[in-house]
């Protein structure tokens, strides 16, 4: 016969076993944050559904915030330990977020660097700092020229421009000035849109310059080639008068894109992320072409960027494991296929990039073909560096400063930013 103590011990074991079983059955819950962008939210919802079906022991909650409030929410939530386990951020924010302790590196056992470098497009290396990867993208974006086919045909223009000179000629035909007022711009100039990238990574290189040293410690664009590139861009407004910054309305998000959709602008340089908005907004036939170059056989260059999924310090233990599984899933080939269909961003994996049907697609093709010659600037302080190049352009157009002086100012300012960052490390 069991003593009273024995019965008690047995009872306790029974209760503990039940508690243990119930805990074991409880799925691990992780929280995923991204900014509100309808197609991306839907795509992640779909991916979560598939992921949870494959991993019944993990539950993923997606939470989204308006773009303007996104960084604020992250800034407050992560230090309080209540934010996301997996967060999506623009790759250019990585140094600031990493330095402030908002991220943890992807564990090497889950994401071996060698594997990433052999399977992902080379530009993804912009997510590497201190020898470690801090995030991975599902989709990547490049720039291309969007043009209004109806306007082209009405004006007897058969095909999109191959060179910048052709672009200027076509834009002149399509630009309308009335009594000193720009009524229709042949080319949509948006230094604060994508054009600061266009100058930095495309024009400076096409004119024979190099924007930065290979390790991104030195600004190298303050050269005659850099000055020619800046002069070329600003001349579009000052000499050729085919467009103007801030046209048509600077108070609207994506103003140049909206101007294109409204038929007020004939051509714009924009990213593949704009495909959805233009598809929904443009009431005319439009096309996409690779960015022009200086001469028909001149060098091609492009700017590539991506949003990446990263781990916050909140992900620890079982949650870290679940978060890693989730990032692996949403950066898998299957997820990238879905992302391309639903969001329109290009796959980040090399295996998907060489598919002929994608390369020859009239919309995605020009973006995809640009990937091999694209550069993803390593920003140490994206907000400041972006502003410096925008100001370099506007000083020439709006304040009458010479391209030489403006670029020299920009180079000195940006070098100070780089020095402050690398010096601190």
């Amino acid at each position, binding site marked *: 016969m069991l003593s009273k103590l024995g019965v008690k011990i047995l009872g306790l074991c029974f209760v503990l076993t039940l508690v243990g079983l119930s805990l074991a059955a409880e799925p691990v819950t992780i929280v995923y944050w991204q900014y509100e962008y309808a197609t991306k939210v839907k795509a992640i919802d779909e991916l979560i559904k598939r992921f949870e079906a494959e991993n019944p022991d993990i539950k993923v909650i997606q939470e989204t915030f308006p773009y303007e409030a996104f960084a604020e929410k992250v800034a407050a939530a992560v230090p309080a330990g209540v934010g996301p386990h997996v967060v999506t951020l623009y790759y250019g924010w990585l140094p600031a977020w990493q330095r*402030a302790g*908002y991220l943890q590196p992807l564990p090497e056992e889950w994401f071996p660097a060698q594997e990433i470098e052999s399977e992902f497009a080379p530009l993804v290396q912009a997510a590497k700092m201190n020898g470690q990867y801090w995030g991975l993208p599902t989709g990547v974006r490049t720039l291309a020229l969007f043009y209004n086919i109806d306007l082209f045909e009405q004006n007897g223009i058969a095909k999109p421009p191959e060179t910048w000179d052709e672009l200027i000629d076509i834009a002149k035909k399509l630009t309308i000035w009335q009594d000193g007022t720009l009524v229709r711009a042949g080319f949509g100039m*948006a230094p604060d849109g994508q054009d600061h990238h266009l100058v930095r990574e495309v024009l400076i290189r096409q004119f024979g310059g190099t924007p930065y040293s290979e390790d991104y410690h030195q600004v190298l664009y303050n050269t005659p080639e850099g000055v020619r590139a800046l002069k070329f861009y600003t001349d579009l407004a000052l000499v050729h008068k085919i467009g103007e910054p*801030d046209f*048509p309305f600077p*108070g609207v998000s994506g103003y140049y894109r909206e101007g294109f959709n409204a038929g007020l602008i004939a051509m714009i340089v924009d990213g593949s992320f704009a495909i959805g908005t233009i598809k929904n907004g443009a009431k005319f036939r439009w096309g996409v072409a690779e960015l022009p170059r200086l001469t028909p056989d001149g060098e091609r260059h492009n700017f590539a960027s991506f949003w990446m999924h990263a781990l916050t310090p909140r992900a620890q233990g079982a949650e870290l494991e679940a978060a890693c599984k989730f990032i692996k899933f949403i950066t898998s080939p299957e997820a990238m296929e879905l992302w391309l269909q639903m969001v329109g961003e290009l796959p980040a994996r090399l295996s998907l990039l060489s598919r002929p049907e994608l390369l020859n697609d009239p919309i995605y093709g020009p973006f995809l073909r640009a990937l091999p010659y694209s550069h993803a600037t390593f920003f140490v302080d994206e907000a400041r560096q972006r502003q410096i190049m925008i*100001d370099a352009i506007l000083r020439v157009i709006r304040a009458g400063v010479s391209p030489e002086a403006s670029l020299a100012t920009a180079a000195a300012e940006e070098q100070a930013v780089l020095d402050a960052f690398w010096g601190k490390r």
Partner: protein
Amino acid sequence: MPSGVSDRGKGGRGLTSPPFMLTLSRRRALWAYAFIFLPLLLFAFFRVYPLFQAFHLAFIRWHADPGQRTFVGLDNFRRLFGDPRFLQALRNMGLYMVLAVPGQVILGLALALVLNALPRGRGFFRAIYFLPYITPAVAISWAWSFMLSPHLGVVNRVLRWIGLPAQPFLTSPAQALPTVAAIVVWQYIGFHIVLFLAALANIPKELYEAARIDGASAWASFRYVTLPLINPTLVLSVVMATGSPTIGILQLFTQVLNLRFYDPGGPLGSTATVVIYMYQVGFKRFELGYASAIAVLLFIIIAVITLIQYKLTARRID
């Protein structure tokens, strides 16, 4: 000696009113304290505590992990005075103040005087002027961004129609700041008009009649009757227009952010404000320690300016 007094002196009141019973005035006071206790608690928690937090953060290098935050003394403040973007925002703030505070107060008072003199329709005009104040600042910014477009905006169309040259407005580094200041004056002037109308309505008519009988001119009536009697409202109006979190020009944010959506504070930083810069430093660069130093300095600047304004404008009413 009346019997009542001697009774109280002998403790007779204690018999009818035991020591733990409170007088009516004390009871009223206790109730009042009880009623203000909760709001005070909320105020302390949501306003005072974050203020002290900001003071604390201003002396540290920020890190998401509290264990890795380092005390840097006055480094963040020293950095501020060598930061050209911050100094530009500070200069802009001075310009905004010089343009927008007198703009709001003087125009607000002038319009209130005109409305006050209207025999009919005062309420209608007051509502019209007040409308922009209750319209979301984001909507106002977008609307003005459309209207002020150098090429397609209605303002330049009107200017051309009356034979004046078109203006670049928000796209010009020279014109952008005065343009933003004008929009702010336009948006908040209704608030000041309502304040001044209420103050004007409280001035006894007899004072004006007495002044008229004494042969005072309209200017003299305004100078020696109206102005002294609306002085408290004038002080409030000046202080609100300068530093209040809602309409204070020194805390200008939403309009600047939305008038140039992709280049807030531009062109070339010409419209940047200290709050915009603080926001960019804090939430674009995650340097919350440095952003807090900006917040602390702004707090001190607003407090000092408010005190000076109070000293200069507040007058005792005789």
